[in-house]
C-alpha cells in the first residue's frame, strides 16, 4: 500500500485526556516527526495496523479545548481540521474524551462532529469512571450522536482492538448538526459555500469566525472570505459565547439521557491533600527548588560518564580515520570537520535525555501545572508567564528544545519574550568554556573552609545568566507594546502515577528533535569552519612545513612538536586566522587578541569548540589528547607581547566568561527561533541585543579589572 492511499486518522482531544497514551499504544516505536506542509510546525505521526490487517497513519494533534484557537498549538489543530481539501486532511477522526468527566470533552466532540468529518468517539479512563461509581449507556450515546462510541483504557490498551475494528468500517456522517447556525449567519455561510466550494455549513461558518486560521487559503480566496464578512457585517467572535452555551445545553440533555449512575463525590479530594503540601507558601517553593537542584545535579554529575564515553568514542573514530585513510582533502574533511561535528552534537544527548526524563515525569504526574501556578505571579512581574518556567529550566541543557517548549504559552508577547531570553540561560555548551577559563583564573582554594572557589565561580556564571535573562525580559516587557491580553486559565490536572512508556517516548522524541534540528546546522557550520581553518590566501598554507622548518632551524624539535607548530602556523595563515586578525581592533578593548578572535568565530558552530580551537592555536597537538591540564598550562604560559605578562590575566578571563555567558554564539538556536517565530525579525533582534549585551558587559568587566 502506498503512502498516499493509506488512510489518515487524526487523534483529537483535551489536554490530559490520555491522547498521547493512546497514540503511543497505537503506534509504538513507529513514530516520526515531520512537518505539516504549509504550517511550519512539526507533525507527530506513526503507523498502526488496523483490525483487517491494513495499515493506517495515525496523526497526533496537540491537545485542545475547543476549535476556537488561542495558542499556537491550538491554531495548528484548527487549520488542519478546517482545510478539508488538502491532501493532509485526515480521513477519519478519533475524538478521545476523559470518561470521568464528559462535559468538556463533549464540547470539543460536538464541534468536530459538526465539521462533517467521519468521527469516532473513544471514551477513555473508563476504569476510573467505574471506580468513581459512574456508568453510561453507550448504545444510547452512539444513537443520539450518530457516531460509533468505543470505551477504552489507553493506559493498558483495553478496548483498542474494538477501536481498530471500527476504524476499518465506513463511518456514517450524522445527518443533523448539533449546533444550528444563527439566522443572521445563514446568508454569509451560503455565500462562502457557493464561492469557495465548502461542503459543510459549520466549516463555512468557521471560515467566517476564524480569519486568523485560514493560512491554507490562497490570498484571493482569503479576500473573498473577507469581502463576504464585510458584506454581511459578520464580526468574528460575536456568537462564540452563545454557540458554547447552545452546545452545553445539548450536552446536558445528552448526559441526562445516557447517564445510568452518577458519581457521588462532587469535589475531588486526593489532589487537594497533595496540593496542601506541594503548594504550601514556604514548603511549595522549597520542594520546587529541591527538584530543580536534583535536576541540575543529574545534568552535571550523572551525565558526565556517558558524555566522556561519547567524547572519547568520536575522538577515537576521528584519530582512526586520520591514521587509516589515505591523506587528502576528503579524509581531512571527514576526520577534522564532519566526525568532530557529529561528536559535538552527540555529546549533549545524555544531558538532554536526562533533562527531558525529569520534565516528562513532572508533566505526567501533573506537578508541572503546579509549578506554573506557583511561579506565575513572580514571572509576570518580569513580562513572562508561569509557563515560561519550563523553557527556562530546559535552557540549562540546551536552548533548542527549550524554545520549542514555548508553544504552550498562549500570549504572543510573553511567548516572544521567553524565546528571546531563553538563550541567556547557561546551556551545557558553555560548560567546557567556563570550566577551562575558571580553572585558569580562579585559584583552586577553599573559602570559609568548605566552599570551593572554582565551584562558586561556576555557580556564579549560571546565576549571572539567569539574572540577565530575567532582567532582559523585564526590559522587553517595557519595550514591546501589544494590546493582546494575557491570561492564565489553566487546568490543574489530578495527580497521577506517570506512565513510564510515555516518559520514554518523550525522551526519544525530544532527543531526536535535538539531534536533527541542531545536527543539520552544526554539521554544515563545522564544514564551513573546516574550510576556513584549512585554507588560506596565497601559498603559505601549502608551504607551511617548509616555512616552519626555516623558522625553527636552530630549535631542536621533536616530531610531535614540529607537527604542532605546523598546525598552529596553518591556522594562523588560514582564512579563519585572517578573520581573527581583521577583527582584532574590534575585540582589543575587551582584552582579546587575534587568537581569541579565531576562537570566537569558530564558537559559532557550538560554543564548546572554543576549547578545541584554543588547543590547536596554542599548538599542543591534537585536541584528542585532551588533558585539560595541558591546554590550561599552554594558555597560562601564553605571554602578552605588549605587557610581557601572561595573556590570560583575570581581567581577560572574566571578560571572556561574561562574553560567553551573554553572546548569541549558536546558529542552531537562531534557526529554531526563525522557525518558531516564522520570520527573521526576532532572531535578528535576538542576535543584536545579545551581542551588544555581551560586548558592552565584557568591555566594562575588562576595563574595570585591567
Amino acid at each position: 500500500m502506498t503512502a498516499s492511499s493509506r488512510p489518515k486518522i487524526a487523534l483529537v482531544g483535551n489536554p490530559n485526556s490520555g491522547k498521547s497514551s493512546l497514540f503511543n499504544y497505537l503506534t509504538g516505536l513507529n513514530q516520526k516527526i515531520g512537518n505539516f506542509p504549509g504550517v511550519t510546525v512539526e507533525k507527530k505521526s506513526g503507523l498502526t495496523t488496523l483490525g483487517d490487517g491494513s495499515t493506517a497513519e495515525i496523526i497526533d494533534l496537540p491537545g485542545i479545548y475547543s476549535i476556537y484557537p488561542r495558542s499556537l498549538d491550538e491554531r495548528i489543530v484548527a487549520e488542519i481540521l478546517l482545510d478539508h481539501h488538502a491532501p493532509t486532511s485526515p480521513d477519519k477522526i478519533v475524538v478521545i474524551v476523559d470518561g470521568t468527566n464528559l462535559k468538556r470533552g463533549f464540547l470539543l466532540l460536538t464541534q468536530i462532529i459538526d465539521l462533517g468529518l467521519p468521527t469516532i468517539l473513544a471514551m477513555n479512563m473508563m476504569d476510573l469512571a467505574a471506580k468513581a461509581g459512574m456508568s453510561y449507556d453507550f448504545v444510547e450515546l452512539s444513537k443520539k450522536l450518530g457516531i460509533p462510541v468505543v470505551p477504552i483504557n489507553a493506559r493498558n490498551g483495553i478496548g483498542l482492538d474494538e477501536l481498530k475494528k471500527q476504524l476499518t468500517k465506513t463511518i456514517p456522517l450524522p445527518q443533523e448538526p448539533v449546533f444550528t447556525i444563527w439566522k443572521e449567519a445563514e446568508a454569509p455561510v451560503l455565500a462562502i459555500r457557493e464561492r469557495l466550494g465548502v461542503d459543510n455549513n459549520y466549516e463555512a461558518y468557521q471560515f467566517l469566525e476564524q480569519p486568523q486560521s485560514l493560512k491554507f487559503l490562497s490570498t484571493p480566496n482569503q479576500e473573498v472570505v473577507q469581502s463576504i464578512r464585510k458584506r454581511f457585517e459578520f464580526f468574528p467572535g460575536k456568537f462564540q459565547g452563545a454557540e458554547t452555551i447552545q452546545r452545553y445545553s445539548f450536552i446536558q440533555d445528552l448526559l441526562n439521557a445516557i447517564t445510568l449512575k452518577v458519581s457521588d463525590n462532587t469535589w475531588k479530594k486526593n489532589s487537594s491533600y497533595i496540593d496542601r503540601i506541594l503548594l504550601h507558601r514556604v514548603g511549595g517553593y522549597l520542594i520546587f527548588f529541591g527538584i530543580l537542584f536534583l535536576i541540575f545535579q543529574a545534568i552535571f554529575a550523572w551525565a558526565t560518564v556517558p558524555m566522556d564515553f561519547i567524547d572519547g568514542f568520536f575522538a577515537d573514530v576521528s584519530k582512526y580515520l586520520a591514521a587509516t585513510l589515505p591523506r587528502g582533502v576528503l579524509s581531512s574533511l571527514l576526520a577534522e570537520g564532519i566526525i568532530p561535528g557529529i561528536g559535538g552534537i552527540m555529546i549533549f544527548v545524555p544531558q538532554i535525555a536526562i533533562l527531558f526524563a525529569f520534565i516528562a515525569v513532572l508533566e505526567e504526574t501533573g506537578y508541572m501545572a503546579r509549578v506554573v501556578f506557583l511561579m506565575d505571579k513572580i514571572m509576570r512581574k518580569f513580562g513572562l508567564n508561569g509557563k515560561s518556567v519550563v523553557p527556562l529550566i530546559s535552557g540549562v541543557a540546551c536552548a533548542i528544545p527549550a524554545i520549542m517548549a514555548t508553544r504552550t504559552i498562549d500570549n504572543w508577547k510573553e511567548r516572544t519574550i521567553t524565546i528571546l531570553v531563553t538563550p541567556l540561560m547557561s546551556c551545557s555548551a558553555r560548560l567546557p568554556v567556563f570550566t577551562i577559563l575558571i580553572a585558569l583564573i580562579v585559584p583552586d582554594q577553599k573559602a570559609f573552609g568548605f566552599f570551593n572557589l572554582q565551584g562558586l565561580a561556576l555557580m556564579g556564571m549560571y546565576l549571572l545568566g539567569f539574572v540577565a535573562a530575567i532582567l532582559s525580559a523585564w526590559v522587553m516587557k517595557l519595550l514591546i507594546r501589544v494590546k493582546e491580553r494575557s491570561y492564565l486559565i489553566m487546568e490543574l490536572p489530578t495527580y497521577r502515577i506517570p506512565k513510564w512508556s510515555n516518559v520514554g517516548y518523550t525522551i526519544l522524541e525530544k532527543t531526536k528533535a535535538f539531534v536533527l534540528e541542531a545536527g543539520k546546522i552544526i554539521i554544515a557550520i563545522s564544514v564551513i569552519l573546516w574550510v576556513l581553518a584549512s585554507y588560506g590566501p596565497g601559498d603559505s598554507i601549502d608551504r607551511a612545513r617548509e616555512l616552519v622548518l626555516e623558522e625553527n632551524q636552530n630549535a631542536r624539535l621533536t616530531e610531535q612538536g614540529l607537527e604542532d607548530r605546523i598546525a598552529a602556523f596553518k591556522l594562523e595563515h588560514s582564512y579563519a586566522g585572517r578573520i581573527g586578525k581583521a577583527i582584532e581592533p574590534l575585540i582589543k578593548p575587551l582584552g582579546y587578541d587575534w587568537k581569541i578572535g579565531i576562537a570566537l568565530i569558530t564558537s559559532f558552530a557550538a560554543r564548546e569548540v572554543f576549547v578545541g580551537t584554543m588547543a590547536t592555536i596554542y599548538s599542543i597537538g591534537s585536541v584528542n589528547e585532551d588533558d585539560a591540564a595541558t591546554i590550561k598550562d599552554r594558555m597560562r604560559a601564553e605571554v602578552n607581547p605588549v605587557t610581557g605578562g601572561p595573556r590570560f590575566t583575570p581581567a581577560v578571563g572574566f571578560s571572556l566568561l561574561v562574553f560567553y555567558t551573554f553572546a548569541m554564539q549558536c546558529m542552531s538556536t537562531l534557526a529554531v527561533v526563525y522557525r518558531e517565530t516564522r520570520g527573521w525579525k526576532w532572531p535578528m533582534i535576538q542576535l543584536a541585543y545579545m551581542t551588544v549585551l555581551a560586548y558592552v558587559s565584557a568591555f566594562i568587566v575588562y576595563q574595570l579589572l585591567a
Partner: protein
Amino acid sequence: MLAIGTAYIFALFKINLNKPMAHNVAEMRPGEVGIVAGFTDEHLSVKLMEMGCLPGSAIRFNFSAPFGDPVCISVSGYELSLRLEEAATISILN
C-alpha cells in the same frame, strides 16, 4: 456584656461583618462555595465556559497561590487555576 457575647458568637461561626459578601470569585475565601451567575468579560467568558465554568454550576474556591495570585477553583468536576483578574470576571450567587 452583650457586645462580648455577640463577638464570641461571630467568632464562633466565623462571621465577619467587615467583609462584604463575595460578588465574584476573586472575593471568595478558601473553601467557599457559590453558583456561577455570569461573566463580566465577554472575551474571557468563552474560554472559561470551554474549560467547564458554566453559568448555574457550583464553583468552589480551593486555595490561592502563595502570593495570593493565581487562585485554584473547582467547577464541574475540574480544577482550574485562574489569575485574580480573571477570577474577578466570574460573578457568583451565594
